[in-house]
């Protein structure tokens, strides 16, 4: 590393010379890049693609993709319930409202008009067997004139239609409109715009028809996605809130408006760069990666604070603003780079989770952190070298340095025998409790309804209403029965599918099942005057064909090579899903068939089963990777195994405690919460790195452990505490997100950031004491 420059210059790190040697040029470059990326950042689009949120490479999802188009007509529909709080649905005013809403839904883009079903559509019919054979007609009498007689006739028809519990609520106080959707518009070929569709439902249906005695409930996948996009956008507001709080805290910390604004500005620039680059590489921002700007901002602020603190400290010591900035950079850039590198690499370990949104989050976060290296370690010292810090800030620091800081002093206790042993003992007890509690931790989503949204969200209230008043579960697991083309209704395949349905109905957690075989058996009874003694799959293909002539669409695919076996579940708990998956496989082993494969899995619960499997596999792998990376980086930086243990053990403690917290709060390990652990560890290690690098300086100067820790606290303690709070506040605002998983992420990250901070400030000195770092025999202390 020897250089031809002067001896004085040789002591100055290359990086510092590169940066400060051409301050003006750098400033211009930064301004230029920022302008360029701001333009691109403004074009970032929200992106809530369903396929990105599921593990696309998993076998189940691959099978689902294979038949996605065939299954679409079956699944992608919304159900609009119209409830009267005044009497029953057999009321002229109510029926008029229902008719108007049915008509209105026809004109909402994305709706498959031919498939709409309600009491007011002609495809909803009643039928009964008479001496002459089948008789029947539309449920709405041809002669309907809103009179008492025609309402009574309507009531009779509804009872005969078999739609009670299906289109008509069991208590006759509400009725449904079943609205199938076209994912791709058959005329324009355009993809369904879920956000716009959801908005249309709210404006043209809910807002328009909901009155004092009419309630509208809407459920369905499209509505979940719409609400998700809506809610995710609201989070943008939180960013402004986080910024304001952070500014107040920065000012409170530094008493210097100028440096507070500089830190804020650099952190915002980091966010702009991150968003701009995301857009440049053709990515969008999804409800998960929406977390990244918050993290980038908070991490930027935390590193900026370190710089500002150092600049002020050197100003107190009498350096001029350029000198102070250079010294601040010199003293911090290694620790800063290590910390940021561990963040970035920690985030990239998320790539082991084979789910696109998480990969995007990992990429976005890594980019964000890389950007902070430039903005907050590079741009910020340049800015301070020009603008300096205010005199009031320097005076405040000078004053506070002279004053004993009681809280910080208190932390020094943990370098003494009693406190160190006590702290470690308490941590061990808590970790043991955490491990015990953490055993209750479950994979997957545990709440009913749409787990993405809050239990008390409009959507989930509507969903609960549907579950209560109609007879169908919303947890749907679909197994695809695959045959050679044209063979899906061959007797031997139908008979085995029928057996499969019965087998699955006997699996605990399964409510009921539906498929073409059920329709065929009912059809057989129907052909035979309703006589259930014919409730069986008939070997005669002509009879069998006749039995399914009235089958609703979607129960077999176009070339008759696949029939979905629809399994309604009690819930979507991981146990239930695992059991269903196992039993499907067990059935295939017990009844092997050459012509028929039972392919897993589709339906919301089938996809969730796949997600759970991927998450479960990734969970351990990700922990190994993230800790592996953190340990390797600390080892490279500090060259001491004891140091690594001192830094990593508190992190593990936090990981254990956060898992216990998840178990206690009933938050499962899922797409949203698994990354949090990696983020928590990756960012959490920063505190340890900053504290330990200062301790190392002191230990190198032959100070005792207590003196070294005292030195580290005085130099960086306030900044670490401040960083913990900044990070926590940045993500804590998420707890108010209307999206459940964002709130879960916010809660867990807040918890992890604060615990990591406390862990670093309490357990690092305590562990250092126990490992006999820098006590008596100072020569053997592995400080480097």
């Amino acid at each position, binding site marked *: 590393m020897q250089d031809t420059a002067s001896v004085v210059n040789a002591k100055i790190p290359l990086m510092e010379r590169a940066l400060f040697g051409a301050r003006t040029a750098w400033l211009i470059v930064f301004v230029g890049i920022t302008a360029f990326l701001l333009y691109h950042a403004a074009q970032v689009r929200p992106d809530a693609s369903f396929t990105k949120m599921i593990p696309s490479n998993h076998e189940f999802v691959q099978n689902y993709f294979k038949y996605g188009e065939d299954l679409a007509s079956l699944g992608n529909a919304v159900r609009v319930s119209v409830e009267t709080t005044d009497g029953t649905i057999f009321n002229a005013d109510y029926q008029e409202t229902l008719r108007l809403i049915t008509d209105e839904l026809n004109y909402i883009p994305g709706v498959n008009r031919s498939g709409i079903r309600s009491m007011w559509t002609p495809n909803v019919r009643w039928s009964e067997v008479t*001496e002459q054979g089948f008789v029947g007609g539309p449920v709405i009498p041809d002669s309907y004139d809103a009179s008492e007689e025609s309402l009574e006739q309507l009531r009779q028809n509804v009872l005969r239609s078999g739609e009670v519990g299906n289109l008509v609520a069991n208590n006759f106080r509400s009725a449904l409109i079943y609205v199938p959707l076209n994912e791709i518009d058959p005329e324009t070929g355009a993809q369904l715009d879920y956000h716009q569709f959801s908005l249309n439902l709210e404006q043209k249906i809910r807002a328009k028809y909901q009155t004092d005695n009419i309630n509208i409930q809407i459920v369905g996948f499209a509505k979940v996605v719409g609400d998700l996009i809506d809610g995710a956008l609201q989070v943008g507001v939180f960013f402004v809130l986080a910024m304001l709080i952070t500014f107040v805290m920065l000012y409170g910390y530094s008493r210097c408006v100028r440096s507070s604004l500089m830190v804020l500005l650099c952190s915002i620039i980091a966010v702009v760069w991150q968003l701009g680059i995301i857009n440049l590489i053709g990515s969008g921002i999804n409800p998960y990666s929406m977390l990244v700007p918050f993290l980038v901002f908070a991490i930027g602020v935390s590193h900026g604070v370190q710089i500002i603190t150092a600049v002020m400290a050197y100003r107190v010591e009498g350096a001029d603003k350029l000198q102070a900035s250079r010294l601040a950079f010199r003293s911090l850039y290694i620790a800063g780079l290590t910390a940021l590198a561990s963040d970035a690499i920690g985030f990239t370990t998320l790539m082991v989770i084979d789910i696109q949104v998480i990969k995007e989050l990992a990429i976005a976060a890594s980019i964000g952190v890389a950007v902070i290296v430039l903005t907050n370690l590079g741009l910020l010292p340049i800015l301070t070298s020009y603008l300096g810090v205010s005199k009031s800030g320097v005076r405040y620091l000078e004053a506070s340095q002279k004053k004993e800081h009681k809280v910080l002093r208190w932390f020094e206790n943990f370098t003494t025998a009693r406190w160190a042993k006590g702290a470690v003992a308490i941590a061990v007890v808590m970790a043991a409790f955490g491990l015990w509690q953490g055993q209750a931790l479950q994979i997957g989503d545990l709440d009913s309804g749409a787990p993405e949204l809050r239990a008390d969200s409009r959507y989930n209230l509507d969903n609960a209403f549907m579950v209560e008043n109609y007879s169908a579960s919303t947890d749907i697991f679909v197994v695809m029965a695959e045959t050679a083309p044209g063979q899906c209704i061959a007797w031997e395949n139908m008979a085995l599918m029928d057996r499969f349905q019965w087998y699955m109905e006997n699996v605990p957690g399964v409510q009921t099942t539906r498929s073409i075989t059920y329709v065929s058996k009912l059809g057989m009874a129907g052909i035979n005057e309703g006589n259930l*003694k014919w409730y069986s799959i008939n070997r*005669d293909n002509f009879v069998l064909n006749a039995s399914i002539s009235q089958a609703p669409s979607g129960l077999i695919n176009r070339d008759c090579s696949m029939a979905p076996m629809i399994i309604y579940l009690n819930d979507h708990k991981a146990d239930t899903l695992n059991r269903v998956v196992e039993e499907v496989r067990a059935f295939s082993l017990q009844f092997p068939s050459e012509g028929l494969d039972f392919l897993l899995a589709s339906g919301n619960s089938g996809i969730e089963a796949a997600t759970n499997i991927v998450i479960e596999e990734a969970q351990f792998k990700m922990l190994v990777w993230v800790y592996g990376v953190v340990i390797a980086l600390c080892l490279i930086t500090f060259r001491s195994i004891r140091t690594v243990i001192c830094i990593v053990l508190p992190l593990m403690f936090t990981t254990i405690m956060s898992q216990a917290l998840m178990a206690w709060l009933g938050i499962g390990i899922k797409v949203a919460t698994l990354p949090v652990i990696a983020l928590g560890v990756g960012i959490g290690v920063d505190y340890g790195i900053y504290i330990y690098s200062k301790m190392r300086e002191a230990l190198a100067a032959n100070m005792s452990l207590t003196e070294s820790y005292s030195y580290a606290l005085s130099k960086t303690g306030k900044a670490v505490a401040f960083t913990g709070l900044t990070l926590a506040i940045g993500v804590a605002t998420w707890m108010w997100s209307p999206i459940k998983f964002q709130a879960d992420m916010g809660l867990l990250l807040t918890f992890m950031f604060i615990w990591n901070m406390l862990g670093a400030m309490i357990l690092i000195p305590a562990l250092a004491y126990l490992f006999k770092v820098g006590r008596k025999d100072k020569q053997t202390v592995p400080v480097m």
Partner: protein
Amino acid sequence: MSRIALAAALLFAGFGVGAGFSAYAQQPYDPIYTPASKAVRAEQAALVGFDQFKDTYITTGVFGTVLMRHGTSDWQQMDIPTSVLLTSVDIIDDDYIWAAGHDGVLLQSTDGGQTWQHRLDGTELLNMEYPWLQARIAEIEAEIDSLEDADEIDELEFTLEELGFLMQGLDIQFEVGPTKPFLDVLFLDRSTGFALAAYGTLLKTINGGDSWQILNDRIDNPAGYHLNKLLVTDDNILFLLGEYGLLSRSDDLGESWDALDTPYDGSFFGGVIDQSGQLWIFGLRGNVFKSADNGESFHAVNVPTRYNLNNGTVLGDGRLVFVGQSGVIVVIEPSTEQAVVYSHESSVPLMGVRQGAGNELILVGRSGLQSFIIPNGSTGIKG
């Protein structure tokens, strides 16, 4: 010839499958010889056959499900060597029980339901029906040749045509497998019994099921309507009920049958003989008829329901209970013919009813086992 060879091959295949339990998994799935699985939800399976003898109850249904109970014990699912829909069951005495099902399956237990044996399957039935039908056709053809009256010839040719259709049906079954469902089974004692099937098939045994005789041609049923139910009086008079108002009586244990004047064109699904020996029959759309003279004459009983009635029983106090579609339960006082209609809360089709303890009815139907307490002195509801 080839057809018989095929039939033999099918028969062989059938026995081959049935013979080795370990082998069945290797074969394509066929419910006839696949044992029923023990099911945690057996009591919620669709159940359509129901019988009672002393305090033993037995019910049969989909996927070879057979449930038994003695007195008020828990229902127990029996080990059954088939998975076809078992449509009907008849307890003869403490040991002998017969069950009938789809795909020509007849099962027998000789130890009170503990173990069950296949006694007939659809392939064997086809092998009986095929030569029988050939003989019938030859017989009619000979008769036509011997006749001169054009009208009589026309009539026989019509019959011949019908038999031709039946032959075609058998041909199809030889190809796709036996599909004909038995709809009722009734034994008068351990040796003499009857099994009724779709398309006008009536079988009789006089040696406890060792061999069966086809009696289809003894009934006036040229179109081959389904035979739904066989009733027997204390005096061994038999009544056969079927599709499209089919109603026949036999006074000689089924050897000959007299078509009765039907009061109704719709299908009959069941009937009971009340304590005073009167015949009650019922079927489509809540139609109930009563005969006090062994079927010579009937009159309509006014029952206020439009739902099909599927099954009935006589209570200890002489009242009659009929059950049917949409959970309808009809209680009739036979002396006054006063009918009270109740609706079971499940609203599902009910296929069987027997008296439990006191006013309790045990019901079976599409949602499995259910029960109903007949309210005291209630007037019921309109169905």
